[in-house]
């Protein structure tokens, strides 16, 4: 096969910044394409993990000290700390599910901050509406996500890699929007050669959807091949593998600074005791993979784990729980002021439950996210307002971070 008679990638391709193609072959050419980081890109990292399907906060961050807990949860109640298969204590009232072993270690090191009785501003019990609102960041459905709008206010443009990174095949709503983001997923065995890619890019150039996708895709792959080339591919299960890759890409000096991942398996209507265990173990493994791969950058990292809503306080008829309201969230990372549980505990007595069935939310999830954007990413008030429209009354939560 010869390409002698073929034209080069073409003027249009070059205008499009397809020189990123040059990096697909490895790190060799990557340096030539862009100079060293121009200094605008900060060192702080944010990873948002969307737990799809509504994690039961009462089964993850367990209020074993509440007098009504054991009665409400019946056979689903977890043994108290110190007993066989028991909770990992979080200071005498709450306990962490035993599957979250690594995260309990982070807690003891002051790097995990569980948040309890938290919810977004919506009171839907629909997964799909709830996830859209959680990711959209407003009280009505949006076409773009809050993390994308926040990215628009971050410094450090004109770099090899986009500041934002979606990990996995899809692009979740939280990162969709006008601000371009990169993405990464494990490689296929065969890929088109570079010259063919250039021709494909020309064919798709004028297509508003596919053209944009390909330009961003080339850019992302170009960066990832350089950043990941130096080491073995990350191992572990599906989510852990994605988390490890995210950690490695975020660790790079000129890599992305904000990443989003998603993990399912939380919609535990039936047999929750068995079904939530693997989801928790995956989450735990993923967070620990991030820490491992981020290395020194972990100290400047916040991992925010959020879910669309909590689940019913009572066990249902099938040893599971149904869609509820108040739930739990996690902040993890070297930048987090952890080792405590953030909660204004509403109680589990029947008259304390929301609509007589769910944990009453006492904290707005947007306050947490806004606190992280303000105090960790150092975004200005205008950026917070853009990320979460209509949230002027929601004061960013202070004190989430060290220093």
């Amino acid at each position, binding site marked *: 096969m010869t390409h002698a008679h073929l034209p080069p990638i073409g003027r249009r391709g070059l205008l499009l910044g397809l020189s990123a193609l040059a990096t697909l072959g490895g790190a060799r050419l990557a340096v030539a394409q862009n100079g060293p980081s121009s200094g605008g890109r900060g060192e702080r990292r944010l990873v948002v993990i969307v737990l799809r399907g509504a994690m039961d906060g009462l089964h993850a961050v367990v209020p074993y000290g509440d007098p009504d807990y054991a009665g409400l949860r019946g056979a689903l109640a977890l043994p108290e700390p110190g007993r066989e298969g028991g909770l990992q204590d979080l200071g005498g009232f709450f306990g962490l599910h035993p599957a979250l072993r690594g995260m309990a270690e982070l807690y003891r090191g002051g790097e995990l901050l569980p948040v309890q009785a938290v919810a977004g501003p919506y009171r839907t019990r629909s997964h799909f509406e709830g996830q859209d609102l959680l990711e959209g960041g407003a009280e009505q459905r949006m076409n773009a996500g809050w993390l994308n709008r926040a990215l628009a206010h971050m410094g450090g443009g004109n770099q090899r890699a986009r500041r934002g990174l979606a990990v996995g*095949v899809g*692009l979740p709503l939280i990162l969709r929007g006008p601000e371009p983001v990169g993405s990464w997923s494990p490689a296929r065995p065969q890929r088109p050669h570079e010259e063919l890619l250039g021709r494909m890019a020309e064919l798709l150039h004028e297509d508003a959807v596919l053209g944009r996708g390909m330009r961003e895709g080339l850019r992302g792959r170009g960066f990832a091949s350089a950043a990941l080339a130096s080491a073995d591919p990350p191992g572990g299960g599906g989510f852990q593998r994605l988390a490890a890759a995210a950690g490695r890409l975020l660790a790079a000096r000129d890599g992305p600074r904000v990443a989003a991942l998603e993990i399912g398996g939380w919609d535990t209507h039936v047999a929750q005791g068995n079904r939530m265990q693997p989801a928790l173990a995956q989450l735990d493994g993923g967070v620990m993979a991030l820490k491992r791969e981020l290395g020194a950058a972990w100290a400047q990292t916040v991992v925010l784990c959020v879910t669309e809503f909590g689940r019913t306080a009572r066990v249902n008829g099938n040893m599971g729980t149904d869609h509820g309201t108040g739930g739990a969230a996690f902040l993890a990372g070297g930048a987090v002021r952890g080792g405590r549980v953030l909660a204004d505990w509403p109680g589990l007595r029947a008259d304390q439950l929301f609509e007589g069935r769910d944990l009453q939310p006492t904290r707005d999830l947007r306050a947490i996210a806004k606190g992280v954007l303000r105090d960790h990413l150092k975004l200005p008030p205008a950026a917070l307002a853009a990320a979460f429209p209509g949230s002027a009354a929601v004061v960013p939560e202070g004190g989430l971070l060290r220093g």
Partner: protein
Amino acid sequence: MSLSPHLALHRFGYGARSDVPLPADPLAWLDSQTRAAPAPLSRPGYTPADGYAAWREHDASPPPPGQQSPVTRLFRAEQQAWVAHLLTTEAPFHDRLTDFWLNHFTVAERGGFGVTTGFSAFLRETVRPRVTGRFADLLVAVGKAPAMLFYLDQVASVGPNSSFGRRSGRGLNENLARELLELHTLSPAGGYTQQDVAELARLMSGWGVERSAAPFDTIFRPGNHEPGQKQVLGQAWAAGPDSYEAALRWLAAHPATLRHLAFRLVRHFIADVPAGADVTRIEAVLRQTDGDLGAAARALLRLPSASAPRLGKLRPPLEYALALFRAGGGADPRPVLGAMAALGQPLWNAPQPNGWGDTAEAWAGPEQVMLRLDIAYETAGRFVRRDPRDMVEEVLGPLVRPATREAVRRAGSMRDAMALLFTSPEMQRR
């Protein structure tokens, strides 16, 4: 404007195959698919009883790690049967309607053996024969299908005041009731409340599946049924088995349901952001015909936007993979299934009960687009004995853009030429 033969296959089927002649009268050809009963699939399926037998076999001697369960074996064969059918189908519009309704009424492999054991019947007996009939009949059949009752946990729902509920302390599971209202019928625009969800769950209690004894199928267990009258959206329903079907028929005819279905049909076949007039037209047809899905399908074909030359919709991975392998003349379903999974849409395994996204933004993230290029290149490698210059004309006909024809002509190899054809916007869109 009229529908050209190529556009008919492209927009309302899975694309042309060069070894199958084009329809002479595209509209009549599409219409006829909405009026005749579908031909049986050439590969055999399995009954729920077969599935439950395999399930018992699995439980009696669980296969060692790395070895396929007998249940999974059945399900994989069914996936291959369906994709083999789609590769050579003579009624692709009917099949597209089946795929559309399978997604509307999502049940997924990740739901476990309860879903996979019942899937063949769900496809062949529940959904496929009804996609051009009345929506109410389809809804009732789906609402009583074992795969759906398992997938959304209805099998575990017990009226707390039923005799079994009082004895066992077990209670309701709201999952199917909620999705029936939110996804299958009214949509949130229908304005139902949490109370309506709970009441519908009470009304439905008792409906479940008997999988360890005859009839190996859906049954009503009076001892699990919540006694007393139920109120759903202001309607009163008596206790007993008949209220479930009656409530489903009432929901099927609700104006919010018709609007929801019309919107989803137009969005799937015509435009990511449907024109209001198009939705109103399909809604009117559904209203005037008592929910006749065949009439709605024929009305879709006659919307002016249905024959617009611009290819406005991005093919989701399922359709894109099929279009590539049909263009290449493929007959083996296995690599097609692999391509679908690689592109993020493994067949019959949507991540959530709302099914797969039906707009470009669900499928056009950067890495998703790059993976399409990888698959285009891989797939081109399978069909290098075909001349891509002929293939362009056969598969795309008048839809091809000069730039694509030129890129194919000037490519450095047959494989590159075919990969470029497969990458072109004309192949990725419909």
